[in-house]
């Protein structure tokens, strides 16, 4: 098929041995004329060093305030194919598990009613069908519903919760991240599909400190697996690793809290000083495993640099016995979320993320409002100073008790 637009700049991006987004758009353009216009518009954007997209507007499906991201070209006469080029966000299953049959069904819908371009997955975790015209939105939505899928979140709403592969495929998972993600997604459907917040709110669930969902940087509320007892050590396997790698250099020497040592008697770990960073376990997965008393650390407040600068989450609940709460449908966790949202709703301003609100009003006021006792473990990073000043330990003249 001959190209409608000449794209010398984009052609440069096809060179090299790695997959190229230009190659994929060109493949999609063989099926879809609108995608051909996409190539033209992107080429012009590269040439002029500016984007030609507008977003937002009154785009959606009936009854839903989220799940569709409106996208329009500001050059509709020149590139009519991308005059309307919306994104449909589809709530992904926990851990991104699909059958090939359901994937074929989804892409058949996208090929017939959209641009034949997809994101697997968007940065929040959803499957994204790209390049949908307004007139096709309801059709696509109804077909997805018939497959048992639903839209994800967008706008000032709860964004689609996502999790790592958890206990389904990972030996490091300290709790059932997939179950928790699924439960929370079902519980907060209204908050996801009917925007009611000041701004977006994201949950991400990671099974261990490796944090495969990058929740500490990308979720307003990060749920990260940890353990309470000691790292399990198989000393025989440690000796096997010692034959292959320099443990002093690559294991004990890289421990951020220097809580471990190795000599001919074996590996010793001062678990009271371990920050559960997962480094040693990652290097020697056959010799070391997380402890058996698994749970999670709940952190709050991270965001990307949009309105103000980027933030990482801070520790809100150092250890939460998630397995126990799971027996009760995660009710304690849901109540905590309810209190956080109530405070954010009451005191947050438009386009203010919850982390920014906490920074503005102070952690003390926030903790008091949500009914959590301040703890020394509420830190922004391991070994960091706590936010809380314990006044009862300080005399009036400033002398410490």
């Amino acid at each position: 098929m001959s190209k409608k637009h000449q794209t010398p700049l984009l052609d440069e991006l096809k060179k090299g041995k790695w997959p190229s987004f230009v190659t994929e758009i060109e493949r999609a353009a063989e099926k879809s004329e609108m995608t051909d216009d996409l190539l033209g518009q992107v080429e012009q954007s590269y040439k002029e060093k500016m984007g030609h997209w507008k977003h937002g507007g009154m785009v959606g499906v009936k009854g839903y305030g989220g799940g569709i991201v409106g996208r329009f070209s500001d050059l509709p006469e020149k590139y009519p194919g991308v005059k309307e080029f919306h994104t449909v966000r589809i709530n992904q299953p926990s851990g991104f598990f699909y059958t090939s049959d359901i994937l074929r069904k989804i892409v058949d819908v996208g090929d017939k009613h959209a641009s034949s371009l997809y994101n697997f997955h968007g940065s929040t975790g959803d499957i994204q069908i790209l390049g949908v015209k307004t007139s096709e939105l309801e059709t696509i939505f109804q077909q997805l519903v018939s497959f048992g899928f639903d839209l994800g979140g967008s706008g000032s709403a709860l964004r689609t919760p996502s999790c790592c592969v958890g206990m389904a495929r990972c030996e490091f998972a300290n709790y059932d991240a997939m179950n928790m993600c699924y439960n929370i997604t079902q519980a907060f459907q209204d908050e996801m599909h009917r925007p009611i917040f000041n701004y977006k709110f994201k949950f991400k669930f990671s099974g261990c400190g490796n944090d495969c969902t990058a929740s500490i940087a990308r979720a307003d509320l990060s749920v990260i697996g940890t353990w309470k007892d000691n790292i399990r050590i198989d000393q025989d396997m440690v000796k096997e690793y010692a034959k292959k790698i320099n443990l002093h250099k690559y294991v004990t020497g890289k421990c951020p809290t220097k809580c471990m040592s190795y000599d001919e008697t074996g590996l010793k770990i001062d678990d009271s000083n371990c920050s559960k960073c997962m480094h040693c376990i990652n290097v020697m997965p056959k010799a070391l495993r997380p402890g058996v008393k698994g749970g999670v650390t709940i952190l709050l407040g991270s965001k990307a640099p949009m309105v103000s600068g980027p933030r990482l989450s801070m520790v809100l609940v150092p250890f939460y016995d998630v397995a126990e709460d799971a027996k009760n449908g995660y009710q304690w966790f849901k109540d905590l979320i309810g209190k956080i949202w109530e405070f954010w709703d009451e005191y947050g301003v438009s386009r203010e993320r919850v982390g920014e609100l906490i920074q503005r009003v102070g952690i003390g006021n926030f903790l008091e409002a949500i009914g959590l006792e301040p703890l020394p473990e509420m830190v922004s990073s391991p070994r960091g100073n706590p936010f809380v000043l314990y006044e009862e330990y300080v005399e009036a003249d400033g002398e410490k008790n």
Partner: protein
Amino acid sequence: MTDETKAQLEEAIVNLIKEFTNKKRFKPGDIVKEMEMKFSVNGVTKDDVKAAIRDLTDSGRLIYGYAGGSFLSLPE
């Protein structure tokens, strides 16, 4: 909340948005606060207002839009 209050609440929400068409974009949160105050004597709660907004958007009397934040609007 009685059916009569519910109908009045839904009407008040639509009228508020109608009155400020092309003047102000109402976030759902703004409407919840406004209506909770206005109907407090009728015992209307936040959840009642949220349910009313849900009914209005499900029936198509109101639609959501997005411009830097989500807002409610009359259908075009």
